[in-house]
């Protein structure tokens, strides 16, 4: 659009009788001049004054722009450029995040390895206890002896398997570790546990 000054200038020319143009024509002419001048400068600005033009934007020399920028920053109309300290702290932040991620990965690896070793030990223990239970039940002289053997085995299994799983959950070791501990419940031990639950 033409500026108020341009319109006023044409209006005053017309009022002075120096132009025979009608008011609407004056405004159209002013608008045309304004558009032409903008096109000449390759300047197009959209909403909020955002640059949307194509081609090289004609701006003031470097020093002028630097001064203008400094003035705008001083007036708070432009954000201050990132200071070296900010960049440094950002780098530090990213480095710390990286270190944490690596440490977490390492901890998870150690926890997984520890769980695997623990599971192997548990599987052996569960196997041994199951063998002992079979021996006890076979050797039981009475129903009471057999019942005692059931109770004993169930208590041991609960301590070994249940205790380890509860420990892993309360320690927040995560589902993979908890699930790997459950692996120590072998099919034979699971069958025995079902059987025992019926008899308890």
């Amino acid at each position, binding site marked *: 659009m033409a500026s108020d000054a341009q319109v006023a200038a044409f209006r005053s020319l017309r009022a002075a009788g120096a132009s025979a143009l009608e008011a609407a024509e004056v405004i159209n002419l002013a608008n045309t001049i304004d558009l032409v001048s903008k096109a000449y400068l390759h300047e197009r600005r959209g909403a909020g004054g955002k640059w949307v033009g194509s081609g090289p934007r004609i701006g003031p020399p470097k020093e002028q722009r630097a001064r203008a920028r400094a003035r705008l920053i001083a007036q708070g109309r432009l954000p201050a450029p990132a200071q070296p300290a900010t960049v440094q702290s950002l780098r530090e932040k990213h480095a710390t995040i990286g270190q944490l991620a690596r440490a977490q990965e390492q901890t998870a690896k150690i926890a997984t390895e520890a769980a695997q070793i623990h599971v192997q030990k548990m599987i052996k223990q569960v196997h041994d206890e199951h063998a002992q239970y079979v021996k006890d039940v076979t050797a039981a002289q009475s129903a009471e002896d057999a019942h005692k053997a059931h109770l004993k085995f*169930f208590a041991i299994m609960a301590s070994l398997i*249940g205790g380890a799983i*509860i420990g892993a959950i309360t320690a927040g070791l995560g589902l993979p570790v908890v*699930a790997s501990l*459950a692996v120590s419940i072998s*099919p034979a031990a*699971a069958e025995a*546990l*079902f059987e025992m639950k019926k008899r308890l």
Partner: protein
Amino acid sequence: MTPQQREQAIDVIKNRLLKVTIGHTEQEALEVATAMVDQATANQDDDGHAG
């Protein structure tokens, strides 16, 4: 151990029991798992651990 942690422990054991055995219902597995977790908690408490 919170009630949620207890439920989680029961669920893990129940799923494992169902995975390695055939012919048992989920209800049976749930009962066994619950009994095991309760027993384990009682054992831990007896040992002076916070269950």
